[in-house]
């Protein structure tokens, strides 16, 4: 495992050091994961169901704390701080999250959804700033031209793919240091999925993205680095092109060949 952390990744945006998470005592859902996450790159976390990939992702913005009795150990360093010792609210503003199925706030309009991070945190903005943020974030997710005339309509009026892009806009509005995505396209059709993948390739110029995906093809298409997790352990962490062409571990190879998962 040590060779993973020894990889030459300079200026990592996120460092995972001996991270273990358990739902029940004595049984780790995530077991001693070590990894450095590259800045402004897409890092994919792959693995079969129940391998702990979502748990690991949720630990990074401490959403795992919503489950009772969950225990975490190790260090997760974002910038210079160990997020496990920070106030969770501060962590979550720095680590934005996009979920499996689109979840815009149903009572808020499209523009209010984009600004939700500010409103919910009582950050007051001038009207000018608000308009700028809404236009910039919606443009970033390629939604501006589609919705600029209906900004006051409810976010839930949009199609599934548009809703998910709205959720991405909501997450990037707070300028997070890392953008966490938990299978963001699993509820979308292939066209909307393709759209989001193209979008992520554009967004990585500005943001560091960690994406959990079930879809190996997706990881191959968009990610720069790939992690393969199995039974809570990080089996392999490599540049995506190496992992897909020449996996080092037998389990990774079997998974990529579709022998389990």
């Amino acid at each position, binding site marked *: 495992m040590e060779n993973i952390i020894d990889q030459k990744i300079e200026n990592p945006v996120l460092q995972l050091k001996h991270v273990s998470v358990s739902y029940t005592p004595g049984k780790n859902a995530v077991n001693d994961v070590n990894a450095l996450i590259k800045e402004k790159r897409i890092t994919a976390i792959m693995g079969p169901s129940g391998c702990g990939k979502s748990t690991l992702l949720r630990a990074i*913005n401490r*959403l795992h704390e*919503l489950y*009772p009795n969950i225990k975490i150990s190790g260090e997760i360093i974002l910038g210079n701080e160990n997020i496990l010792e920070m106030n969770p*609210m*501060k*962590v*979550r*503003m*720095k680590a*934005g*999250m996009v*979920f*499996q*199925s689109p*979840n815009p*706030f*149903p*009572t808020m309009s499209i523009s209010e959804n984009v600004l*939700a*991070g500010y*409103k*919910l*945190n*009582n950050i007051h903005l001038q009207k000018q700033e608000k308009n700028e943020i809404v236009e910039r974030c919606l443009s970033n997710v390629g939604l501006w031209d589609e919705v600029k005339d209906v900004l006051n309509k409810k976010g839930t009026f949009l199609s599934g793919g548009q809703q998910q892009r709205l*959720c991405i806009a*909501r*997450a990037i509005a*707070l300028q997070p240091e890392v953008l966490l995505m938990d299978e963001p396209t699993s509820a979308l059709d292939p066209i909307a999925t393709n759209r989001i993948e193209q979008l992520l390739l554009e967004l990585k110029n500005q943001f560091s993205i960690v994406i959990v995906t079930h879809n190996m093809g997706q990881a191959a298409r968009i990610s720069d680095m790939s992690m393969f997790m199995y039974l809570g352990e990080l089996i392999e962490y490599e540049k995506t092109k190496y992992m897909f062409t020449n996996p080092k571990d037998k389990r990774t190879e079997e998974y990529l060949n579709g022998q389990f998962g």
Partner: protein
Amino acid sequence: MNDTIKIRIVKDKIFFGIICFLSSLTVIPLIAILWQLLRKGYRQINWHFFTQSAPSTLDAMMAQASGSLIPGGVANGITGTFLMVGMAAVVAIPVGIFSGIYLADKQKGIYASVIRFLTDVLQGTPSIVIGIIAYAWVVKPLGAYSALAGATAMVIMMLPLIVRSTEETLKMLPESLKEAALALGAPYWSVMFRVLLPSAFGGLFTGILLAVSRVMGETAPLMMTALGCTAVNWNVLKPTSAVPLLIWQFYNDPNLIDMIWSSSLFLMILILGLNLIAKQVAQKWRI
């Protein structure tokens, strides 16, 4: 083979027919009640019905002797009902919603289970018992029947309905909504007040309206608390009338029989209206 299929189709049709018949039976009482009330009560409903206080026996007797309508109305009852329901709502709505939030959030804890159980018990408590409690708590110490005492009884009756409807509505919201809000770094109160409660508004509002419509029709607890009053009263420390109380008083006075039907019709329409609004709101705000 064909025969067995035919038999099965016939059985299906019989079964469906029975369902239709029995379900229509349940509607008949309501239609019959409305018909009866309309038929006997519509004549008394006019402008005076809403603006004047309940008539005295003598006035009613004289009016009936001359063949005209009973003078007066139920203004004292309407104002009393709104006064007491309003006071009760001001207390019961916030307390009920906050308790509901707590129960929705702590689905497993022992303390929450106890509260949930007690709320259910409270919901099943006979209203007359609640009336006696309000009598002991408010009427006795203050030494007088009052709107305050009536409102106290109403609060106790409204609380469990609002608590449980808030809890159920909040539980029905998708978990992802809460997660999305928390993932933006929002503090819990902000998530609750700006995301969850607004999303649950339809259910919350419906629960409140149903609670209001339930206490609006209550009579027994008011007999021991608000007592009744022949004039419009806005003093919360004095005896106050209410529409169901007036119906009871009219019932006890042979000269005022006609007023029973019109006041019942009015109360019925009021409660039916609240229920219909509740239904509309619930549908419109469905998430």
